[in-house]
């Protein structure tokens, strides 16, 4: 993490109220693993209660042409204790999504066309190369879950280790990471 990032982190920590309290939840929804996912991993974008896309891990995007989406990442965005979220993080996430036939089986509108390609331009910029114009491309980024490399390795072993802080602990039975990325790989 850069010195600027450390300063920003200190300022944020000093200004925000510390989280408090503990609650016990019984979530009877069959999709509760999905809400856990969305509250433990990061995404490039989120959605407001009004249903509008809002940048999250990304700060901005622009259409270079009809099929090329250029995205800038938030600076000094890091996972707890360990690595910084960079273009490599996004590339890893895209690879996980694209190697599956239907990664979002219960929300297929988030699936990316298998011909989609990612180009990491720099630590904070990447381009998504689409096979065809796609007006929903930015919205689909909401379901590209970003997590650190160590957690994906953990998920392969299916061992719960508090050391890693535990994110993306939604994996399928075969040990493949970040759970609702289901279906056949490759």
């Amino acid at each position, binding site marked *: 993490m850069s010195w600027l990032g450390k300063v920003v*982190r200190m300022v*944020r*920590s000093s*200004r*925000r*109220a*510390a*989280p*408090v*309290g*503990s*609650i*016990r*939840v*019984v*979530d*009877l*929804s*069959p999709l*509760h*693993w999905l809400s*856990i996912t969305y*509250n*433990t991993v990061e995404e490039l974008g*989120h959605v407001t209660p*009004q249903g509008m896309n809002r940048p*999250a891990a990304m700060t901005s995007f622009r259409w270079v042409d009809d099929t090329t989406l250029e995205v800038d990442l*938030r600076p000094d*965005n890091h996972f*707890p204790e360990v690595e910084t979220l960079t273009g490599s993080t996004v590339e890893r996430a895209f690879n996980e999504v694209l190697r599956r*036939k*239907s990664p979002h*089986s*219960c929300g297929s509108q988030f699936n990316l066309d298998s011909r989609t390609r990612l180009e990491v331009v720099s630590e904070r910029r990447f381009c998504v190369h689409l096979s065809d114009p796609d007006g929903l491309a930015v919205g689909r980024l909401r379901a590209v879950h970003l997590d650190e490399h160590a957690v994906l390795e953990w998920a392969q072993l*299916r061992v*719960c280790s*508090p050391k890693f*802080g*535990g*994110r*993306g*602990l*939604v*994996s*399928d*039975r*075969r040990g493949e990471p970040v*759970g*609702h990325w*289901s*279906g*056949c790989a490759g």
Partner: protein
Amino acid sequence: MLVEGYSSINAEMAIIRQEPLACPWLQQKDWTPTVRLTANPDYWDVARGPRLAEVIFRNDLTPEQTLERICTTEGEVDLVTEIEPGDALRVEKSDHAKLVTIDAFQVIAGVINRESADLPLGDKRARLALNLAIDRSKLVADTFSGWADPLGGLTPSFAVSR
């Protein structure tokens, strides 16, 4: 941050035919009895939170056990989602629990097969008669204990374009 337990699904394709591909997804849950999340106090989006220090998901209770605990005890279950409409009254009468209702994105609709060989459902009048024969108010009262609204189409009344 998720520090204990896991919540996963195993999704398998049940292929009906290859061309064109037709398949449902068979999902099987694989959850630990508890899943514990702790706050990441350094998360960049202050507006989003976290505000709670810890959330513990309890996967070790049946819906019946959950309802019993939320209505009759304190400290074992603090939040339950998706209470059945028939159980809502019990929660309302409980001294320990408060019922909170939201607009659900769920619509119950009937689909009529117009191609049915032995029924005159290709006739608009027949479909209209079927439609009018359904007592929506009674359906809401008897099946959903009043916790639903009749619709004229598939769009819920609270869906507003901004």
